[in-house]
């Protein structure tokens, strides 16, 4: 295609509401041939358009093994996501992608994996969890630590139960103090504290940590104490983007274009960057 900003038209196949302000959307290329030939790697992102409203950047939160459609998930927070909140099955939206780098799923083979996510950070982790579970034999123990403010803010809550049924998978759910209900069976506390108390073996381990900056900040020392070092801790940056292809200059952070060289970085790489994220 010569116009790199031209999106493909996608049909909305399914819209699912997760919380009071989070929905996930399943979309499919209108052109069946394009859908058939589309491939991506988990961790990559796309630019999603609602014509007349604008374009937003979201991770592709479905597994790369699912060939029938792709999914994205968003929180209603701005102009474009407010408009996305109103879309329905059968509507047409635009998609450009896949863009950016991806999780090193091959390099993680043979390792134990710890996935740590806060709130709306579950979607970009979810794609990697499903990918690992679908290739279960290739990975060691899988631990998922997922926290939200309240029991009603958990995204993809139903899938947490599905994951727990796989071998060597431990799911630790937590909500902030005060966010629990009498029926809540998970942990109560902030992610760093819950992780510290969970006694997760961390030998030969890669960790994926995604969430608000404050959560990441306090989770890193806990991982360090567990013995997971900076080169083995991965995160996904969420710098604002417009073009997604290294032109518009917006996601620029120190020497990197997050859209091209990211969004996935190790903590070792991030430590060398200015704190412009």
């Amino acid at each position, binding site marked *: 295609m010569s116009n*790199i900003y031209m999106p493909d038209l996608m049909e909305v196949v399914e819209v699912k509401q997760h919380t009071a302000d989070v929905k996930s959307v399943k979309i499919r290329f209108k052109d069946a041939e394009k859908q058939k030939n589309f491939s991506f790697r988990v961790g990559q992102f796309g630019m999603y358009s609602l014509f*007349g409203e*604008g374009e937003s950047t979201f991770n592709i939160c479905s597994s790369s093994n699912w060939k029938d459609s792709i999914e994205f998930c968003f929180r209603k927070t701005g102009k474009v996501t407010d408009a996305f909140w109103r879309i329905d099955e059968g509507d047409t939206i635009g998609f450009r992608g896949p863009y950016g780098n991806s999780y090193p799923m091959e390099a993680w083979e043979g390792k134990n994996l710890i996935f740590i996510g806060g709130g709306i950070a579950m979607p970009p982790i979810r794609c990697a969890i499903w990918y690992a579970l679908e290739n279960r034999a290739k990975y060691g123990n899988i631990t998922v630590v997922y926290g939200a403010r309240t029991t009603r803010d958990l995204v993809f809550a139903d899938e947490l139960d599905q994951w727990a049924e796989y071998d060597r998978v431990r799911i630790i759910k937590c909500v902030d103090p005060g966010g629990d209900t009498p029926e809540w069976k998970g942990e109560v506390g902030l992610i760093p504290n819950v992780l510290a108390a969970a006694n997760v073996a961390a030998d030969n381990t890669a960790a994926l940590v995604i969430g608000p900056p404050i959560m990441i900040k306090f989770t890193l020392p806990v991982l360090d104490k567990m013995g997971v070092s900076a080169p083995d801790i991965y995160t996904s940056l969420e710098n*604002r983007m417009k073009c997604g292809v*290294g032109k518009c*200059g917006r996601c620029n952070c120190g020497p990197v274009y997050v859209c091209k060289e990211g969004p996935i970085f190790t903590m070792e790489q991030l430590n060398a960057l*200015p704190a*412009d994220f």
Partner: protein
Amino acid sequence: MITQQALRALVDEWIGAGTKVAGPSYVKKDFCQYVPLASSAELLLEGFIHPRNSIKEFFFPRHEKIYEYALKGHEVELADMSPASTPQVIIAARPCDTAAVAILDAVFNWGDKDEFYTRRRDAATIVALACVQHDSQCFCTSVGLGPDAEKGADAMLLPMDGGFEVRCITDKGRALFAGRTQSSDKTAVIPEGPKVKMSPEQVRKALEDYENPLWKTATLRCLSCGACSFTCPTCHCFDIVDEGNAHGGCRAKNWDSCQLCMFTKHASGHNPRNVQGQRQRQRTQHKFRIYPDKFGEVLCTGCGNCARNCPVSLGVLGTLIELCAEMPESVGESK
């Protein structure tokens, strides 16, 4: 050489043949800009230092449609608005502006090509006009250029008695002037440019300290208006927005600036660069460290427009000089 009269006749010939021609012109009293020319009478060939804008807008317009959309129920129709390859000539561009285009080629061509830029670029011929004057804001010689630097130019006009020496640099330039020049036993004498005012290597070294207190103090006056980047020949950040309603409209690329407070603001409210010092630091980092590391060239041609157009006379050059002043004499030395 070519006489001024012959040159103007040639320009009128290009315009008459349907070629888009742009060059410096007074758009109002004492206010010179590069603009599309309707006739050679509008073209300014002497008596100005540097137009208030740059020639980047002839390749990377301030506003351009990417595509049009039309909504019909659940369906959407898109119409690609990629530009046609229309021939254009940029005449009498300052060498700092022509060099900027050569530098910008890297970013619009790496990875996916931005054909909105590359098509216009391929169809353009750029004729530079060497400088015989400079002002206190000019610092081309500090970034390896000069009053008759040929970078990015297809041909160059060098002012001399009775007209201009014509130096054809590329095939495009040769084609433009083929058979239109006359021989002369004189050559133009171009005076030296501004004295060297700062060193990009020293700026680069100084930039390794992200927490330099200079960013807090030197930028207090900045209004965050973006004039420095909009008039900069190399600043190329842009925004992508929809303009239209529920029936149809377009998606557009608009100029943007890292100096504006909304530039990096996340939907969540989090802003990685929420104070002006951080934004000025980013702009300087991008020009003297990030771009050179990625594309091998400093993203600055020393045109001085950032300082010339600053409403509070902040003077980016001044900031750079201050940055360098903190550095030890020898560039190679560690701090």
